């Protein structure tokens, strides 16, 4: 029997979107997550602060509608990924789920496919990374959705704090793109988005994809990187890409078949974690400094209202298209080709 102060650590792990479990198998362990109710409660804990941050944002800018719009985008994107993951796990595509009759490999009976899919969507939509099922054994489209959640930059709803600033950066991209269409200097909440501002936003948006794709390229061309893979073919690629995506976005969940306890993988993932956490923060703080120096402009006739359903739809679209397109080639070679085979 192994035991210890599990309960107190569990609360920290989930509410802090940290995700490091007391036991190796994390929230799949019956001592960490004994019942379907504790499963739902853990999901609530890991979502509560990121979603609350959007509401807090509305209060800080003294316009609750701005916060509600951000919250709506987070809820929409999370809802889509929960739906896709659940449908995928319940349908159980793939040869192994077909042989067994359902995708129960790497899942606990008490949670079932739906309870595991909900947890997987929530943990990758935030920067938690706790797991109650083995993600490596998720169905091909299910594992792909989990990966895509992290690639979005963990903005739906994201980590405690980091989710909000990630979403706000994309909100600025959205305002900027709309400004280009009508040929006006774009502004967000009365702050002008000029050249220096948009350069910082661009650096922010580019940092994580460069780390993820660069990291994947290094891992897949080095023999030490390939040595860690458990699977061959598209799922092997998915293992490597999932690892670098999880590290660069500070998620922490894994396709656990990958042997990452080697000097090569430890070094690569460690560097990605450091750079993936601190570089984006640097750009966000620099941008905040530039905005703080500006005076707030009153909204004019040409200002794009950022609290209407139109903006919610635009921002969701920008998140999916701008971020998604970056990763389409690598997703096509991994989870997508695996889903089709």
């Amino acid at each position, binding site marked *: 029997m192994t035991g210890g102060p599990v309960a107190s*650590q569990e609360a920290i792990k989930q509410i802090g979107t940290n995700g490091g479990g007391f036991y190796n198998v994390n929230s799949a362990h019956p001592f960490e997550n004994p019942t379907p109710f504790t499963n*739902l409660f853990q999901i609530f804990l890991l979502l509560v602060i990121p979603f609350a941050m959007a509401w807090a944002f509305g209060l800080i800018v003294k316009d609750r509608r701005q916060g509600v719009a951000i919250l709506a985008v987070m809820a929409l994107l999370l809802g889509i990924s929960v739906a896709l993951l659940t449908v995928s796990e319940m349908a159980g595509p793939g040869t192994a789920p077909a042989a067994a009759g359902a995708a129960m490999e790497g899942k606990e009976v008490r*949670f079932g496919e739906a309870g595991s899919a909900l947890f997987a969507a929530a943990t990758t939509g935030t920067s938690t990374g706790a797991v109650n099922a083995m993600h490596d054994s998720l169905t091909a489209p299910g594992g792909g959705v989990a990966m895509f959640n992290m690639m979005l930059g963990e903005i739906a709803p994201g980590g405690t704090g980091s989710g909000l600033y990630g979403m706000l950066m994309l909100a600025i991209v959205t305002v900027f793109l709309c400004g280009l269409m009508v040929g006006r200097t774009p502004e967000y909440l009365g702050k002008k988005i000029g050249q220096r501002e948009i350069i910082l936003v661009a650096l922010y948006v580019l940092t994580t994809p460069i780390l993820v794709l660069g990291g994947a390229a290094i891992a897949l061309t080095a023999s030490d990187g390939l040595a860690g893979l*458990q699977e061959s073919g598209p*799922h092997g690629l998915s293992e490597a890409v999932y690892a670098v995506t999880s590290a660069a976005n500070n998620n922490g969940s894994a396709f656990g078949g990958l042997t990452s306890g080697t000097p090569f993988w430890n070094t690569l993932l460690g560097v990605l974690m450091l750079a993936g956490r601190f570089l984006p923060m640097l750009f966000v703080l620099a941008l905040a400094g530039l905005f703080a120096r500006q005076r707030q402009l009153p909204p004019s006739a040409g200002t794009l209202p950022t609290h209407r359903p139109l903006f919610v739809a635009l921002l969701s679209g920008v998140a999916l298209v701008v971020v998604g397109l970056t990763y389409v080639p690598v997703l096509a070679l991994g989870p997508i080709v695996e889903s089709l085979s």
Partner: protein
Amino acid sequence: MKDLYSLFRNSLAGLRLLVLMTLLVGLAYPLAVTGVAAVAAPWRANGSLVDAAGQHVTDRDDAVGSALIGQVTDDDGLFLPRPSAAGDGYDMLSTYGSNLGPLNPDLVASIEAAKAEVAEREGVPESDVPPDAVTASASGLDPDISPAYAAIQVARVAAAQGLSEDTVRDLVAEHTSGRTLGVLGEPHVNVLELNIAVLRAAD
């Protein structure tokens, strides 16, 4: 000089906060939670142990197992748990799910082998073997099986224990937990508690 002084003062304040918070959330908080758990829920805090009579106990020496942790048994007269990838099976010191991918040929082969084995052991067609009987759980410690897997084991267990199938079926129903609030999770049967009930009924 003034800047240096304020840097020193701010750093000192930060250091004091670090020490304070380390003591508070690093030591006092886990101790408090552990203390409250030991008083408010002593059975759960000690690992949900049960003895041979099915009673909740807190002393490890009295227990035959934990209601939350599955265990291997080679007794063919009892309900058997799911396959496990934790060490040699249900090893608490090496909890693990197989992590094999959904298209992995080795996994498909092991599922098919397990299916044939379960079907032969229980004397049922392979199409009656439920998914949880042939797949390894996430933790490797899954204490539960599906009602469907329990159902196909009833005949074998009843014959081995000299009980009627109806008696054993009633015991399975008694130890089946439904979905929490009607929606959360899946119906599941706790193997250890069921086996204890079966052995007591056979006595």
